[in-house]
């Protein structure tokens, strides 16, 4: 090597060293980090981006709703034993305690090439990293007549907790004694696997006390109950004998709102008094619109080590919108866990560190079988580097042996703690 060559290489090496030794931290402090969606995933991501950066990262949360309303436990509102107010939390602590800027707006579009987000109000925001946590979209057009029936207020879904949840309870409360409440379930995957079966229990619990001649009909497109099957079936037989009828492999294709008739793919038409038809679901609209839903056009493929979209760099997708790994449910608890892995990865990346090579996720999900007793399902998922995915740990996880009031107390304990963990 001649001297001149050596000098120029050394200079380059020095430049590189200088590059290593300082600006990484500055990148974390300077970066614009946007979080789209303030549900279990987005709110947690915003908070933990602040915590994991020791309050140095600049974080902006974009959420159209004025308050957070929990989907978990909202079946108790459908059944009438609890109110929506009990499930509502403020976003204030995220700004007051954690210094997160909150913009009350929805996102019209994301330009992943220019790294900008356009708000519905017209404002454009630049980002270095964006976290997208938009939940699910109900694909209303997969059931003929459903969109119109919903617009007319005849058929409510109440699969996003809010005014529809309360309105659905009112429909049930004003149903005649001897009437039928019908709930239909799309083929998995959908948001909250045990949710429809829990709802059937809550409606039956209400009817048993108030309109005992009535029926609950479950029309399930799946082969069998998709979660906690044995537990739910036992409860239906023992606590609601003759009231709940479960029909697997019943796929709803159309609804006639005027005659309240449900049309099925194979079987004969079914009539009911209150119709709660859940259509197939996809990733939240903004994720689909941005071209992130690269799994069948419905769900978003992510790199599980950091939850970065496989379609776009610096775009991280959480919660119900993703194409899940093996045995990973679409749940609020899971979205909160995704958020922590993504937040830690973003902080590491912006600090110039390797991301955690071995992240861990847990899931717990409590279902109320009446207004007091609960059954759970739990799992632990470790990242398997060789397969680049999460897998449940063999021998871990499981379900309750039977419903219990103790787990009813824990279910509320879970709720109060996860709300505080995500928003407090």
């Amino acid at each position, binding site marked *: 090597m001649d*001297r001149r060559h050596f*000098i120029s290489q*050394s200079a380059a*090496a*020095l430049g590189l*060293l*200088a590059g*290593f*030794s*300082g600006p*990484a931290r500055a990148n974390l402090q300077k970066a614009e980090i946007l979080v789209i969606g303030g549900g279990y995933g987005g709110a947690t991501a915003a*908070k*933990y981006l602040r*915590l*994991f950066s020791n309050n140095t990262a600049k974080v902006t949360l974009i959420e159209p709703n004025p308050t957070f309303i929990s989907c978990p436990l909202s079946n108790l509102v459908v059944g009438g034993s609890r109110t929506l107010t009990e499930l509502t939390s403020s976003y204030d602590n995220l700004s007051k305690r954690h210094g997160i800027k909150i913009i009350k707006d929805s996102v019209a579009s994301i330009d992943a090439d220019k790294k900008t987000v356009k708000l519905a109000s017209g404002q454009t925001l630049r980002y270095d990293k964006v976290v997208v946590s938009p939940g699910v979209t109900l694909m209303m057009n997969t059931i003929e007549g459903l969109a119109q029936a919903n617009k007319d207020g005849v058929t409510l879904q109440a699969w996003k907790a809010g005014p529809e949840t309360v309105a659905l309870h009112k429909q049930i409360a004003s149903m005649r004694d001897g009437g039928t409440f019908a709930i239909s379930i799309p083929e998995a995957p959908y948001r909250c696997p045990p949710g429809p079966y829990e709802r059937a229990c809550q409606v039956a619990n209400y009817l048993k006390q108030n309109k005992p001649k009535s029926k609950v009909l479950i029309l399930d497109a799946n082969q069998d109950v998709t979660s906690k099957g044995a537990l739910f079936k036992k409860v239906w037989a023992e606590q609601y004998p003759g009231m709940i009828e479960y029909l697997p492999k019943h796929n709803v294709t159309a609804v006639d709102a005027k005659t309240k008739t449900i049309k099925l793919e194979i079987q004969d038409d079914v009539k009911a008094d209150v119709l709660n038809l859940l259509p197939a679901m996809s990733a939240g609209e903004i994720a689909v619109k941005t071209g992130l839903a690269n799994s069948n056009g419905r769900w978003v493929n992510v790199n599980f080590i950091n939850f970065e979209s496989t379609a776009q760099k610096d775009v991280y997708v959480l919660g119900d919108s993703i194409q899940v790994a093996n045995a990973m449910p679409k749940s609020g*608890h899971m979205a*909160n*866990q995704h958020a*922590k*892995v993504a937040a*830690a990865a973003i902080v*590491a990346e912006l*600090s*110039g*560190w*390797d991301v*955690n090579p*071995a*992240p*861990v*996720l*847990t899931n*717990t999900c409590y279902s109320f079988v009446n207004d007091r007793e609960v059954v*759970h399902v*739990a*799992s*632990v*998922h*470790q990242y398997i580097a060789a397969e680049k995915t999460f897998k*449940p*740990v063999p*021998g*871990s*996880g499981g379900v*309750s042996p039977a419903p*219990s009031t*103790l*787990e009813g*107390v*824990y*279910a*509320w*304990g*879970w709720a*109060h*703690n*996860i709300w*505080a*963990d995500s928003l*407090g």
Partner: protein
Amino acid sequence: MLAKYLKRAILAALYIGFSHWSSTALAQNAEASNLYKRGLAATCANCHGTDGKGVVDGGMPLINNLTSEQMLTQLKAFKSGAREGTIMPQLAKGYSDEQLVTIANQLGKK
């Protein structure tokens, strides 16, 4: 002459650069490692509160009254089946022994 000084200057600069780089790298490794540990402990926060500080009278057993040693003993008992419970025996079995040590160290009463 000039080349001689330049060479020394470059060597000195390289030495300073490397030592600075390696100490920074070590600091970064320590900070990164701390972040991974916080991330692992955060898997407990959904039920037991951010940094183990649970909601008082929220319905879930509080864990922040336990020392790291006491917490590790309980976690190991759940994992082995020595202690019964509802969800915790099922969850504890999903973590390696080393992970349980990290969790107990992170969340135990200081």
